[in-house]
């Protein structure tokens, strides 16, 4: 299964990129995705763990499964206004 990840703001800076595609084999929840990325990027683990997720531009609970081929945005705590 494949998903497109999008990174923004503090997370984009910490990872030095605005996204990447991710291949994974077994079903993955939002929380599982954050844990997987924290292991891959330990220097950014705190920033990753602070994120909420949006799948195809809709906020989704971390317990929910990542949908196949979804565009998944990692949303750091927002500060608009």
């Amino acid at each position, binding site marked *: 299964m494949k998903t497109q990840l*999008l990174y*923004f*703001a*503090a997370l*984009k800076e910490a990872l030095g990129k605005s996204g990447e595609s991710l291949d994974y084999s077994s079903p993955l929840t939002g929380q599982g995705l954050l844990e997987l990325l924290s292991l891959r990027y330990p220097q950014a683990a705190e920033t990753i763990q*602070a994120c909420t997720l*949006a799948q195809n*531009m809709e*906020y989704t609970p971390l317990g929910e499964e990542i949908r196949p081929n979804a565009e998944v*945005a990692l*949303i*750091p*705590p*927002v*500060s*608009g*206004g």
Partner: protein
Amino acid sequence: MFRILHQDLSAKDLTDLVASTKAGAISLFIGVTRDHQQGREVEYLEYEAFVPMAEKMLEQIAQEAKNKWKLEKVAIHHRIGPVAVGKESVIIAVSSAHRKEAIEACHFLIDRLKEKVPIWKKEYFSNGEAQWLVNFPRQ
């Protein structure tokens, strides 16, 4: 009506967008960049957004407001990119038949925007430091 923009925002544009012959009131909220944050001098700010989702969320919170109050029209523009101190970063305009609804909806909308819409702000201080802001730090 719901836009993330790179240029100066205009209160006149937003007022025109919500104008209606049925409206007896237009309420505006204008968010302006401040020159200090917790005692430190801010030189400028930089905003970033997940633009398509942010525009969609602006429309969604406007719909929430329309479900709570009887409103004529709602328009919201938020600026991204570098924004100098003293400039508008967000303008919300609401029209309604009577003033109470427009004023209350405006207040609701800026609170919802700050809570939900995927926009981020980084402050650049005069001493060369910078930091990403968080509207609602976790307890």
